[in-house]
Structures are given as structure tokens and as C-alpha cells.
């Protein structure tokens, strides 16, 4: 038992306080915790199932939609140029609503306001595919949260939520992802909860899903009432997770167990 339960447990017990945030040199993508097979699946575009969503998003990018019959391309041209690095700096501050907005929210806004289409469902195929396609244009680029002071309150709120014990199991995100990231919960690596691969193809879902869907899973896991998709709370958590991952490489579409 001594060998299996090293410094981690001791730090929790002896200090009586949370071990705190992960130092920059210790940061590791969720990919580094996966099996060699899953890593290989992510690395090869021919075997990465998330690429199907990228292809679907590419199609949607140039399909005219809505009452104005405009496509994303009508305004933004080639996504490979115009969308490069965009996902790496979201959530961003949205002047219209006066609060931070995440990438999926931004795309949904274009869909309704600029194209005159219906509000796309948060985890629906269309929005997930478009978000995956746009985020894929940042693959390999460093996460670059904007130096926008107006985002500071959301980041602080995200951190507060991350450190708040929730649910019947009374666990905070930080209990696992800051204090026990090297451990295994049941058969799963806990990881540091970096948002670098999103939207991801999750083997358990057999589909691509958003960062919010992944966070929902953890909230349900601790028997907490999850936040609503698109809520300020989730956007705040996203803003915090992105600031925690500043400088790490984007991987979209990541593959996770």
C-alpha cells in the first residue's frame, strides 16, 4: 500500500488543504494518459473518427442556410485561413450581449443573426460538426486566451466553480483534476481536464461531443444537477479551463476513452 499510495494521499491528509493548481511544467494533455491504441487513433486522420465530423462541418461551412441564404463561407471565405487560431482564443468577450461567449455560442449566433436560420441545438449534429470544423483549424496552435480584462470575472467564476464541492459525493472538479490527476478513478485515468482536444470523439459516446457535454458527465458523476448547456456557468468554466491550458497545443478532434 505504501508504494501504491505515495505523496498524493499524504499531501491531502497532512495539509488538510487542497494541493492547488498544477504548475506549468507539469501540465499534460488528456492524450498523454490514453492507451497507445487510442493515441494512435487520434494521431492518424484516417483512423480518427472525429474527422467525419470535420468533413461534415466542412460541407456545412459552404452550404447556404437560413432566410438570407448565406453560407459561413459567404462572410468568412476559406475557413483554413479565416478560422485559423480562432478556437484557441475562445471563449471571447461578446460586445452584443456584454458577456463572454464560447465558440459554439458564437457559431449559433452567426447562424441565427447573419444567416437567419433556426437556433441550432447545443449538442445537435449541425452545431457540433461546425464547431469541430472551426476548432480543427487551430490544431497544433497554442491555446491563447485573450488578454481582455473583461474576461477576468468569468475566469475567476470558472475557477470558483472548479473548486466548489458539488453533488451528493461532495467533490470539486479540483479534488480530482488538480489534486489527484495522476490517479485512476476505477479503470479511468483522472487527467488534468485540459480542454485542448474539444470537441472530442469519445469512444464511450460513439460520437463527437463538446467540452460542456464532457463537464456534464463529471457533474452527473458526482451526483450534481448539471448546468444548462450554453449557460454562463459552463462558459465561465470553459474560460477558466482555457486559461489553465494557455500555451498547450490544440488537438481537435481529440479522441478520448
Amino acid at each position, binding site marked *: 500500500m505504501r508504494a501504491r499510495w505515495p505523496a498524493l494521499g*499524504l499531501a491531502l491528509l497532512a495539509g488538510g488543504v487542497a494541493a492547488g493548481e498544477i504548475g506549468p511544467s507539469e501540465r499534460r494533455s488528456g492524450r498523454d494518459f490514453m492507451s497507445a491504441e487510442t493515441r494512435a487513433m487520434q494521431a492518424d486522420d484516417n483512423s480518427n473518427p472525429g474527422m467525419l465530423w470535420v468533413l461534415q462541418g466542412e460541407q456545412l461551412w459552404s452550404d447556404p442556410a437560413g432566410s438570407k441564404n448565406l453560407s459561413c463561407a459567404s462572410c468568412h471565405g476559406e475557413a483554413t485561413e479565416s478560422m485559423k487560431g480562432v478556437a484557441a482564443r475562445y471563449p471571447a468577450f461578446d460586445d452584443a450581449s456584454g458577456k463572454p461567449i464560447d465558440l459554439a455560442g458564437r457559431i449559433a449566433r452567426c447562424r441565427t443573426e447573419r444567416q437567419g436560420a433556426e437556433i441550432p441545438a447545443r449538442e445537435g449534429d449541425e452545431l457540433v460538426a461546425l464547431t469541430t470544423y472551426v476548432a480543427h483549424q487551430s490544431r497544433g496552435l497554442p491555446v491563447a486566451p485573450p488578454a481582455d480584462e473583461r474576461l477576468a470575472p468569468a475566469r475567476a467564476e470558472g475557477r470558483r466553480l472548479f473548486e*466548489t464541492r458539488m453533488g451528493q459525493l461532495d467533490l470539486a472538479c479540483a479534488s480530482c483534476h488538480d489534486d489527484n490527476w495522476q490517479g*485512476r478513478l*476505477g479503470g479511468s485515468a483522472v487527467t488534468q481536464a485540459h480542454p485542448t482536444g474539444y470537441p472530442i470523439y469519445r469512444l464511450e459516446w460513439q460520437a463527437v461531443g463538446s467540452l460542456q457535454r464532457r463537464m456534464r458527465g463529471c457533474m452527473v458523476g*458526482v451526483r*450534481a444537477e448539471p448546468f444548462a448547456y450554453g449557460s454562463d456557468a459552463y462558459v465561465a468554466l470553459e474560460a477558466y479551463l482555457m486559461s489553465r491550458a494557455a500555451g498547450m497545443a490544440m488537438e481537435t478532434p481529440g479522441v478520448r476513452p
Partner: protein
Amino acid sequence: MGAALLALTAPAGAQPVGATDVPTLIAYEVAGDAITGPLGGTRGDADRGAKLVAERQKSLCVLCHSGPFPDPHLQGNLAPDLKGVGVRLSEGQIRLRVVDMKRLNPASIMPAYYGLPAGERVAATWRGRPILEPGEIEDIVAYLVTLKDE
């Protein structure tokens, strides 16, 4: 490990000895770092306890703990191995740890199995009830005291 044991036992002496005052839970008495008497007055059944400990969705024990249980590859390592726990701890000490580990270590990640939920936003299904019922806790305690091989 020395530091850990100290941290585990030190606050216990400082705890007030007495019954909980939560109306919907049955009262129990904490003496030092133990609850000597069975919750509800009756001891449990070790076989039922063994099954419960292995139930990942219900008791959740193996998500964090390893031990002499089925499916070792699905056991977590966020907590001490429960092998030999029946030698290290008395029945009453085990009972308090399962009932409410946070009395001994407020920063523990181990949920209080017989307390009212302390976290925010508890989902409706789980609101206002403990994770396990007294009888289930007694079954688990009855099983853990049999784990004598270290």
C-alpha cells in the same frame, strides 16, 4: 504514512463526542475516532457487504479503493488499499470512516456515506438522503472487519 496516521487521528480527539442532530438520520455516537455500536442497533452481514463493496455504481468504493475484490483492473488508486483493513482498524473505527470520513479529515475526498449531502447542486434524485442506508453500512462494516490478510 506516519504523518498521515497522525493527521487522521489527531483531530479525532478534539471532536465533541455526541449524537448527530440531523433529524432524518438516525443518531449515532462518536467516541474518539470510532462509532462503537452498530447503526440502528443491528450488526450486518459480511456476504452482503462483500457484494455491496464491489457494486461500482452504488457503493462506489472500488472507484477509489483497491482491495481483495473482483476485477482489479477496474479498481481505482485514489485511496488506501483496503487489504488488511480489519487488522489496522477496529470495527468501530471502520464504521466511523465509512459513515463520515470528513470528521477525521475535513479535506478528504471520501464522501460521507451516512450524512446529508454537503455539496452544492445535489441532483434531485439524491437530495435529502444519505448515500447508503444504515443496514448497508453495517453490511459493509461486517465485511471489512473480515479483511485480515495484509
